[in-house]
């Protein structure tokens, strides 16, 4: 086998084994197998079910309008390249420009272009799998109602593989450019994180800006805009032509405009990429000239402070688990000045559904707080450093409790802050706001306790980069979707109780229930910690 083949095979084995991805193996226990299956099923049903229905419905509508069904292929293209840009932009640094195993691979007698080609293959495998999962419901809608010829069907897969190449190169260069600039500036890590957030929020706002509020199917209003984009952005048109018309010329153009820049990126930039890796990590540090501070505090406070510093010190951790608090603060502050626009944004987020203002705000805050899942991954993030807390005179329950409360603080402080500002902006009565605040606090506590149990049961201590824990672990998966699940369940409970009592009372009752369950789960997590900690390998 060639060097490229051997290297790629090894990297695939390292990156895509179930143990590597989930932090556990299917064969570990029957309980784990069941939980993993339930988690995957939940995601598939929640995403493919909801999203799939919307696109199936859209495809049915578009099939009745002559010449419109092929615009679904524009959706496939846009969702595929959107996924590509997000993955490459946020992971290129850890997977390509400063990969953790450079100290192992760098000294080996492997050509720069072979090494970079193998690394990019791994990233693109990530891209293709995610893009396929994201676009499968759209493609299903298209193929269910359109009738492309055999050539089109055959060209779908190669076109799908060619489409992300150009955006991947662009996103990688953008990420490299941002790092090249910010690394030279003081507070580079913070600046970099802010730029990443700005980029992501920009994409999010622009995608919402052409969603149709109030439409029966919110995707319908997008189709005209997307069709117009397809006419102007040539690769989109080539992709649609290749599949819908079976156009070989369309495929050739798509392939050439993707493969040539991609190959050029690998061949021409491989030496520079390895130089970026070889640059001493000492250059990345920000030297502080402040006097040393000797402040003492309690062990619990020290654990909390350590959690905070670890959180802000890992960019992908902040970006993923901290996105909820950021969007809460941004949206609530913006509501003071642009209440109408924020309301339109929230309406867009609810896919145009007509919901009373109080519930929409409450739901938005719950959604954002549910995205805070540090308690579901922070034990895993200890990784090879688990020996520290295991050898120190601090009980496992204290360690887990600190991680739990850190999550509560991270979610509830911005949650209550946002609620206060929203209450001012949208004139929510104080008592209503107080009931909602109780709900936010209880929800944050309950999801944090669930996260703690998840992480204790599914720790992932073996990883090369923290992003593997933050984004690719079972803890992260269950942590985020579990939070959303609790939010939906709480919503139904409030709705149900609201039929027999005032909604404010319903919120308080559900909050008390959530707090009670959360407390019981916290006690369970602390007991689990005492039993399991010593068994973890460190």
């Amino acid at each position, binding site marked *: 086998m060639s060097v490229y083949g051997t290297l790629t095979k090894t990297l695939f084995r390292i990156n895509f084994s179930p143990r590597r991805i989930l932090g556990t193996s299917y064969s570990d226990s029957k309980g784990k197998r069941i939980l993993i299956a339930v988690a995957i099923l939940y995601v598939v049903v929640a995403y493919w079910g909801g999203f799939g229905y919307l696109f199936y419905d859209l495809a049915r509508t578009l099939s009745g309008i002559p010449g419109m069904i092929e615009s679904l292929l524009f959706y496939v293209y846009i969702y595929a390249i959107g996924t590509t840009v997000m993955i490459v932009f946020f992971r290129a640094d850890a997977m390509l420009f400063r990969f953790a195993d450079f100290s192992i691979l760098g000294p080996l007698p492997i050509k720069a272009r072979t090494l970079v080609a193998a690394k990019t293959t791994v990233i693109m495998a990530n891209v293709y799998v995610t893009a396929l999962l994201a676009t499968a419901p759209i493609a299903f809608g298209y193929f269910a109602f359109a009738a492309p010829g055999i050539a089109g069907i055959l060209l779908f897969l190669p076109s799908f593989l060619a489409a992300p190449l150009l955006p991947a190169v662009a996103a990688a260069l953008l990420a490299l450019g941002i790092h090249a600039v910010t690394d030279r500036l003081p507070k580079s890590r913070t600046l970099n994180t802010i730029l990443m957030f700005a980029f992501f929020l920009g994409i999010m706002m622009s995608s919402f800006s052409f969603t149709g509020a109030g439409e029966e199917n919110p995707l319908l209003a997008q189709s005209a805009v997307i069709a117009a984009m397809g006419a102007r952005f040539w690769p989109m048109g080539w992709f649609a032509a290749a599949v819908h018309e079976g156009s070989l010329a369309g495929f050739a153009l798509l392939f050439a405009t993707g493969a040539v820049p991609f190959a050029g990126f690998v061949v021409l930039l491989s030496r520079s990429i390895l130089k970026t890796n070889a640059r001493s*990590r*000492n250059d*990345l*540090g*920000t*030297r*502080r*000239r*402040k006097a*040393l*501070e*000797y*402040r*003492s*505090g*309690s*062990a619990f*406070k*020290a*654990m909390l*402070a*350590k959690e905070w*510093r*670890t959180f*802000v*010190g*890992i960019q992908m951790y902040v970006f993923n688990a901290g996105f909820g608090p950021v969007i809460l603060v941004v949206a609530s502050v913006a509501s003071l000045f642009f209440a109408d626009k924020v309301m339109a944004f929230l309406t867009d987020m609810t896919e145009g559904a007509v919901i009373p203002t109080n519930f929409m705000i409450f739901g938005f805050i719950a959604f954002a707080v549910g995205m805070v899942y540090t308690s579901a991954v922070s034990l895993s993030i200890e*990784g*090879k*450093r688990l*020996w*520290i807390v*295991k*050898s*120190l*005179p*601090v*009980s496992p329950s204290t360690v887990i409790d600190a991680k739990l409360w850190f999550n509560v603080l991270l979610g509830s402080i911005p949650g209550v802050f946002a609620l206060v500002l929203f209450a001012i902006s949208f004139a929510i009565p104080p008592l209503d706001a107080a009931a909602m605040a109780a709900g936010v606090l209880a929800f944050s506590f309950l999801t944090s306790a669930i996260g703690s149990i998840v992480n204790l049961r599914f720790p992932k201590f073996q990883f090369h980069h923290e992003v593997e824990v933050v984004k690719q672990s079972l803890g992260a998966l269950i942590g985020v979707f579990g939070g959303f699940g609790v939010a939906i369940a709480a919503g139904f409970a409030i709705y149900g109780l609201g039929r027999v009592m005032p909604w404010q009372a319903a919120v308080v009752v559900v909050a008390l229930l959530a707090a009670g369950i959360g407390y019981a789960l916290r006690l369970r997590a602390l007991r689990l910690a005492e039993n399991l900690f*010593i*068994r973890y390998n*460190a």
Partner: protein
Amino acid sequence: MLKISHFSKSYDGKKKACDDVSLTIEAGEIYGFIGHNGAGKTTLLKSIAGILDFEDGEIEVDGHSIKKDPLAAKRVLAYIPDNPDVYEPLTGMQYLNFVSDIFGIPAADRKPRIERYAAMFEILGVLNDPIATYSHGMKQKLVIISALVHEPKVFILDEPFVGLDPKAAFQLKEIFRDLCAKGALIFFSTHILEVAEKLCTKIAIIRRGQIVASGPTQEITKDGSLEEVFLELIEK
């Protein structure tokens, strides 16, 4: 005092990484722990530090069972692993304050200790830098300082001299002697037999999970060198 009685540990339930190990290390002793790769050294050291669970036997640290009363045992113990993996997002100072807070060392007490050891190991000037920017040796020094900040009675080290520059290695040996003079005990593993021979008051040799020799260094080596004795024992 560190007392290990009939200690056994198996990772897979079949093969024993350590088998019926018994050792007693008194205050003031520098005890070297020698063995080939995979002999069971790290397993025993991690178990003493309360990091690894074990099936059989008992480990008492200053009279406290590491199994039954782990927090009391850990309060008088310091452990340094063979690989200094520490919290890279923190600065060196934040890490030292974190460890000091866990041990409840008042700011007034930790300050002179940190300054003394950080100056001795020449990392005082970088303590406000993120640990991510430290070299392997600097991380090793930071972990050693964090272990010394609470003045442990029992000092457990796994290959402590690996990664240290000659000056730092010399200073660590001086610290060992100083701690022992104050009544602490040192138990460390090493592959550097010359160091063990010159530094240790007692030595234990482990082979395939079992102690094959232990006692005062001079009794073990007799007229030969430790290297000769070690090779003879492990090839039996």
